[in-house]
């Protein structure tokens, strides 16, 4: 294994000698171009393009959660709350749901006299970012004194409370006969995004949707990389590694942790607002704990703390969930004479993946270097140490 690794790094060094210094930038540029050109290959209506759009939206969420879980080391099991806030932003500010109001900013001419609040998709995304950042700080506040799995439980509780609020929001009145949410009926007929010069998006042509979420992905990736390499990113790592040492070195604990929650939540909200608009409805039933775990699984499978891991994990599980399981492998059990569809046990499959990755390769598929050392270096050393311990003969 070490020989293989040495060989690989030798090859990498050789390749870097040959290539000019700007080759990473060139590679990134080529990848972006391929990304932009993708819908011309797949066609404007294919199930694959649909799967790709949703997978990218999930990858954006995974990137957001990676800030909280990976970089800052705060295990957040209530991430679905930000999905909910984001999706409800799309519902509240882009449909006729608040029928007592007439607000129109930058929407298609056909909507300019419709009832309700109708904002341009860019404004909706910004609103989702702001609302989710505030919600992230509120959820983060009670966890500041806690650590480890207690944080996980408090965030989980918050996520569940938000889910219950969404389902029961029909009975919460906000005045004028309007309610907070439409519960399990769902807020439906959310506006299609509209841009001047482009016109309204439509579900008959998925390409504009793809380019919109691709642009969001690029922005989120850029922010992620810049934040990781900033003073704030280093503060997160320091807090994650040793809180007491970091605080005594002068890192502001409250501000740093809350920034992690706010930034992670903002990305989740962006993606949630996009998914809300893309589905053209927001249904309270979709905000379940299982979704939080789904996003955690993306981060874990990709490699906790690694931006490229979160991106890869998000795309991978997004494709598995939205393309591979429902479209390709769904009748697999029936071929073995079993009477169920694979999509009904998709969460079991993700659970299995979580266990498998954690036991076999805890650093994930595309690990960050520092995390690899943490997850495997110590484990290997300890295994060697504990291996000397006799298993039998020391009964109670």
């Amino acid at each position, binding site marked *: 294994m070490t020989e293989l690794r040495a060989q690989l790094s030798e090859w990498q060094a050789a390749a870097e000698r040959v290539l000019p210094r700007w080759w990473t930038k060139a590679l990134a540029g080529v990848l972006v171009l391929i990304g932009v050109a993708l819908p011309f290959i797949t066609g404007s209506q294919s199930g694959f393009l649909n799967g790709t759009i949703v997978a990218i939206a999930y990858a954006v969420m995974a990137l957001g959660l990676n800030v909280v879980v990976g970089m800052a080391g705060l295990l957040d099991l209530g991430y679905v709350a930000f999905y909910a806030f984001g999706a409800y932003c799309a519902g509240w500010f882009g449909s006729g749901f608040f029928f007592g109001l007439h607000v129109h900013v930058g929407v298609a001419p056909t909507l300019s006299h419709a009832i309700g609040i109708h904002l341009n998709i860019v404004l909706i995304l910004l609103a989702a970012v702001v609302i989710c950042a505030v919600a992230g700080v509120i959820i983060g506040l009670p966890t500041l004194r806690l650590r480890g799995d207690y944080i996980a439980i408090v965030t989980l509780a918050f996520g569940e409370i938000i889910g219950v609020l969404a389902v029961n929001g029909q009975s919460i009145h906000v005045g004028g006969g309007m309610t907070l949410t439409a519960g399990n009926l769902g807020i439906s007929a959310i506006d299609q995004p509209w841009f001047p010069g482009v016109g309204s998006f439509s579900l008959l042509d998925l390409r504009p949707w793809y380019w919109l979420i691709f642009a969001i992905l690029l922005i989120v990736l850029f922010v992620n990389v810049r934040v990781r390499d900033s003073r704030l990113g280093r503060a997160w790592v320091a807090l994650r590694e040793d809180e007491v040492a970091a605080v005594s070195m002068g890192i502001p604990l409250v501000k740093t942790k809350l920034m992690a929650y706010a930034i992670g939540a903002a990305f989740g909200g962006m993606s949630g607002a996009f998914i809300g608009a893309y589905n053209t409805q927001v249904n309270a039933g979709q905000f379940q704990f299982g979704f939080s775990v789904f996003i955690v699984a993306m981060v874990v499978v990709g490699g906790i703390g690694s931006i490229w891991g979160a991106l890869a994990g998000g795309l991978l599980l997004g494709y598995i969930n939205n393309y591979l399981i429902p479209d390709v492998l769904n009748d697999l059990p029936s071929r073995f004479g079993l009477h169920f569809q694979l999509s009904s046990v998709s969460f079991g499959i993700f659970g299995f993946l979580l266990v498998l990755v*954690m*036991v076999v390769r805890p650093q994930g598929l595309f690990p960050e270097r520092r995390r690899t050392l943490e997850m495997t270096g110590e484990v290997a050393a300890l295994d060697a140490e*504990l291996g000397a311990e006799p298993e039998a003969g*020391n009964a*109670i």
Partner: protein
Amino acid sequence: MRHPLRARLANVGHVNTTTITPSPPVMAARPVAAALAAARQYVGRWGLIVALLALPVYYGINDLVSGYQAAVVAGHPVIHHDLSKLGFNFAEGLSDGAIWALIAIGYTLVYGIIELINFAHGDVFMIGSFTAVGMWSVLGLSLTTSMLGVIGGLIVALIISMLTTGTLNVLIEKVAYKPLRSAPKVAPLITAIGCSFILQNVGLLWRGGSQQSVNDLLGSQDVVFTVAGVPILRGYLLAWAVTIPLVFGLSWFISRTRPGKAMRATAQDPEAARLMGINVNSTISLTFLLGGMLAGAAGLVYAVYETQVWYFQGFRAGLFAFTAAVMGGIGNVRGAVLGGLIIGVIQSLSDERIGPQWTEAIVFAYLIAIMVLRPKGLLGEETREAG
């Protein structure tokens, strides 16, 4: 019999003794800060207790002052001004709470010994319910079986489901937690969530995706006797009859037997325990076995008492029981029982008076309140995680 299973470091070798002690308030220099610190201490001591008393006291006063509708006779509502409705809430809550207490003990034992929230525990409880219900049909229990036959059959089903869930819990520990004992703590937590989802989907394939009614073997809603206007149902008696002996038996086991002593020693300091010749691995397995067996017993009681089972019941039960364990002080068996009973009463009050659709939110709000006000719980000591 004071045996708080105080947890120390699970990850042997990865020693990271970062205990944050609250800095002593600087009295003379900053009187405002000192006052704030004193206020915070006061809130920490009494806040949770006040929050817990708020619901029953409010509804008790409400019942006494404005009364409640007890029945409708000839089209006219009969208004009572007494506490028997509150008493009914308490009786129901204490029997629901007995089930949560059994599950909560499993959380608290495991957390005490390896500092892991065993997320799969609620789903182990669900598998216990399913096993028990499966055993009824194997044993041929139905509504026409005689009372003696039902009781005998239930005892057999109880033993089998306890053995099943105990074994299952040990298996989960071997496969998913043991390889990660020295990894960072987030790793076993994530595998625990993974196991929880796997078990849920096993349940989904086993009995389908919707709530399933099962035979009401005992007539769990039949009133046995009435105490001060509060009807005591058969289901309540069953919950207490199973829970009380099990809790006392477990207490005895932990405080009096050699394996119990080994459990306490491992909880306090696994490394020192190993140096003293205790087999830490088998002690941890034993802990999982006991926790799983209690969850299996709770599963049977739940199936008989609620007369319906569902693959998703374990999720809610698990979170309620975890809240109970934290409320009582995690790592503390008596605390888990107390917490379970309190959660049961909160649930029953909320179900009846606020609306069952809000119950989850209210219990979770209490969970957050505990974390903010008193992370060590009612009977617990400071833990490294929560302190």
